[in-house]
């Protein structure tokens, strides 16, 4: 297992470097003009002088590789420069808003896993009967529904009509339920489908038949033979879900006035606040990479064939 983990860890630095390169180079090569953006945000009139001054201050007159190195080394020390909009250090701003988004994403992940599991088990247990059909039908709609629209529909039903839950704002469980569910719904449906398929495949395996022949109860078979083996491949799928859930949180937050990083970044985009955009992209991508690494490690721990280093 150690070999497996070390191999994954070694891939990390070049990947992170490549990601940072893409972010930096795409920005510079896209024709974006940080100097102008900075001046506009600071409401400084655009004259040849002010532009030249801004370019010098932002280090834009240096060769591009120097600029990249400068940005990268500072980023490694968590210095992402100053926001054009707020004139505060970008890192401080982002760190202020990020936890709320991560909280919502984590809650959405919890909903995804907690609901998709029983749905899939139920559907697999009653294969080709009504429970299976209804869950498959629901899942089909789930992957076709836009999450931001679902959010509004949930608000309409639960906040406007029934008045059971608040329509917006930051808070505890009651404030997280509607946005969390809107974000989670699609991933939930995808995961339920995946798990169901995985379970059906496991059900057809010889070891399930052999267990039955030894007189082991169906419930026990479902739990220790089918489920344990069908959950393993799902673990790697969770990595993909996390990416979609974070993305979903960014969009849905704005609907619920959830004080996360989504609205901050949208502001930054309209103001061409490039330091913020660079930091945001790099940071969230890093978080995503880290989550995937943790999931890979979890998988290595849970599958004895990898944990004990099986030779194929």
């Amino acid at each position, binding site marked *: 297992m150690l070999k497996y983990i070390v191999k994954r860890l070694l891939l990390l630095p070049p990947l992170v470097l490549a990601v940072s390169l893409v972010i930096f180079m795409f920005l510079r090569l896209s024709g974006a003009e940080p100097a102008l953006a900075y001046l506009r945000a600071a409401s400084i009139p655009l004259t040849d002088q002010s532009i030249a001054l801004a370019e010098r201050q932002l280090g834009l007159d240096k060769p591009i590789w120097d600029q990249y190195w400068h940005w990268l080394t500072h980023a490694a020390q968590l210095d992402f420069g100053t926001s054009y909009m707020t004139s505060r250090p970008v890192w401080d701003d982002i760190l202020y808003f990020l936890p709320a988004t991560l909280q919502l994403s984590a809650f959405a992940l919890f909903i995804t896993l907690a609901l998709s599991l029983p749905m899939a088990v139920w559907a697999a247990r009653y294969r080709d009967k009504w429970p299976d059909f209804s869950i498959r039908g629901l899942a089909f709609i789930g992957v076709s529904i836009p999450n931001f629209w679902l959010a509004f529909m949930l608000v309409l039903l639960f906040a406007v009509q029934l008045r059971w839950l608040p329509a917006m704002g930051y808070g505890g469980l009651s404030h997280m339920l509607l946005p969390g569910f809107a974000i989670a719904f699609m991933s939930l449906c995808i995961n339920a489908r995946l798990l169901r398929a995985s379970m059906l495949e496991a059900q057809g395996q010889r070891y399930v038949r052999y*267990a*039955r022949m030894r007189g082991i109860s169906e419930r*026990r078979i479902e739990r220790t033979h089918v489920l*344990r083996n069908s959950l393993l491949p799902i673990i790697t799928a969770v990595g993909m879900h996390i990416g979609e859930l974070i993305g979903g949180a960014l969009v849905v937050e704005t609907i619920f006035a959830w004080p996360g990083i989504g609205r901050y970044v949208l502001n930054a985009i309209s103001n061409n606040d490039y330091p913020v955009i660079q930091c945001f992209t790099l940071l969230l991508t890093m978080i995503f990479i880290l989550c995937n690494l943790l999931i890979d490690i979890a998988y290595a721990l849970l599958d004895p064939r990898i944990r*004990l280093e099986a030779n194929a």
Partner: protein
Amino acid sequence: MRLELNNLNVRTHAGEALVKNLSLTIESGSVLALVGASGSGKSLTCSALFDVLPRNLIYSCERTLNGENITGRALRGKHMACIMQNPSSAFNPVQTMAQHCHETLIAVGIKDQAVITQAMLDAGLDDWQTVLALYPFQMSGGMLQRMMLALALMSQAPILIADEPTTDLDLVVQRHILNRLKKVIEKRQLALMIITHDFAVVAQLADRVAIMHRGEIVENTRVTQLFEQPQHPISQQLLTAHLALYAEETHD
């Protein structure tokens, strides 16, 4: 201990008959061999006995244990155990042998863990303590086959069905397993039905032999009788083919 299987009929949804009106008897003190070419329906018979046929097949039969009717479900584990070919895919890849033993005992309601040790020793796994901690991928085919036998023994089932247990193994391991099987049956007074296509196995283990062809039993006699005077043309064909194979080998 006497198990009777009567009037087993297996067919597909489309109506094709795979096993027709098959009846056989398994009793302690006597080893029955079920022989036939591939596709004759031998493994289907085993699956039907245990009531684990695939969903797309329809079947009906009568099972009688010591004179009383019994379902396949009730036979499983407690009264009847199985060892099969290709043991490596029969074990749960994420469970240790110990966990396999544990669930088998729970299924048959035995609390005494000592039966595990005895069963593994009888099956030829002397280093049973090491083996219990192993996962299937860490074990060879021969070890897994012995483990299957151990699992069958620890459930204390008086009837053992062996479905082509030596087919994937090399000849040396084959002989060991069969010897082991013979010893264990004598020691524990088990009833055994062995399904095979190999007459050498029949000669080594069986007292009675039933020849299957296209879903039917065409001949059912004592082994000595079959080898001396096979009655049915299919039996004759199979025996001739078998002997020819051996004849060729000895000539080279």
